[in-house]
């Protein structure tokens, strides 16, 4: 799955495992916020990248449509520790012009997420 410069900078990888995409972010000083915890902006970016991955899977890899983030609403449930973090997006609605997506981020336990987001994307045709 195609990455972005910023995802690479954050050490966020998007992989396909058993037919599902798995998004993970390696911990490090580059994503640290207050001492011992992940930065809220880094968690937001992780959720954003997971949401985009879910849209790309829903559209199909051959589909030239690209997703542009219109807005994001992020709720932080617990501090993200300086550990490996995972995220997964779920497309709630895929329209012709808009995709409505939710995403969840967790660390040790998916049942105890560190943050969740809802994101709305505008769907654009790729320039030829």
């Amino acid at each position, binding site marked *: 799955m195609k990455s*972005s410069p910023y995802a690479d900078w*954050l050490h966020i990888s998007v992989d396909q495992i058993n037919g599902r995409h798995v998004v993970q972010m390696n911990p490090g*000083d580059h994503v*640290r916020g207050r001492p011992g915890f992940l*930065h809220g902006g880094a968690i937001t970016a992780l959720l*954003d990248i997971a949401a985009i991955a879910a849209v790309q899977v829903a559209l199909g890899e051959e589909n030239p449509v690209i997703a542009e983030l219109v807005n*994001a609403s*992020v*709720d932080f449930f617990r501090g993200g520790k300086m550990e490996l973090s995972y995220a997964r997006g779920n497309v709630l609605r895929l329209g012709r012009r808009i995709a409505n997506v939710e995403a969840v981020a967790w660390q040790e336990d998916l049942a105890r997420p560190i943050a969740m987001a809802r994101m709305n994307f505008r769907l654009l045709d790729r320039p030829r």
Partner: protein
Amino acid sequence: MIDREEIEAGLTQGHNGRLGIRYMSHGGGWAELAIDPDACFASGRDAALWASGPVASLMDVTTSCAVWAIKGSISHQATLDLRIDYVRPANLLQPIFGRGECYRIAGDVAFVRGVAHQGDIANPVASVAGTFMLFDAVAS
């Protein structure tokens, strides 16, 4: 009143430091910070545009600094929620400036809002609203 050096000290570490977020100005209850272009911050869909992530990080720390500004000291806090409307794509040739404001503290919750722009606040890149949980608030 918190001073510039205290805010700048908070920007040198971790994610903020790696992004190179820099101090612009602050006052009672507001702060302005900036982030400079770098190819690493490019959008995946168009290398001439900023990715959305750095904007989120800038506004998270800018509004956090606004809470410090209204309290008059660095405080221990964590983002409770953050809402960002991405109003227009941002040109990666130019920095992004963030202005954040803390307009109310109620008990242990600080209410913030802000705008990201590229030199013209009337033509914003993004608009944000959010809340922070304060860890060292005194119960009223």
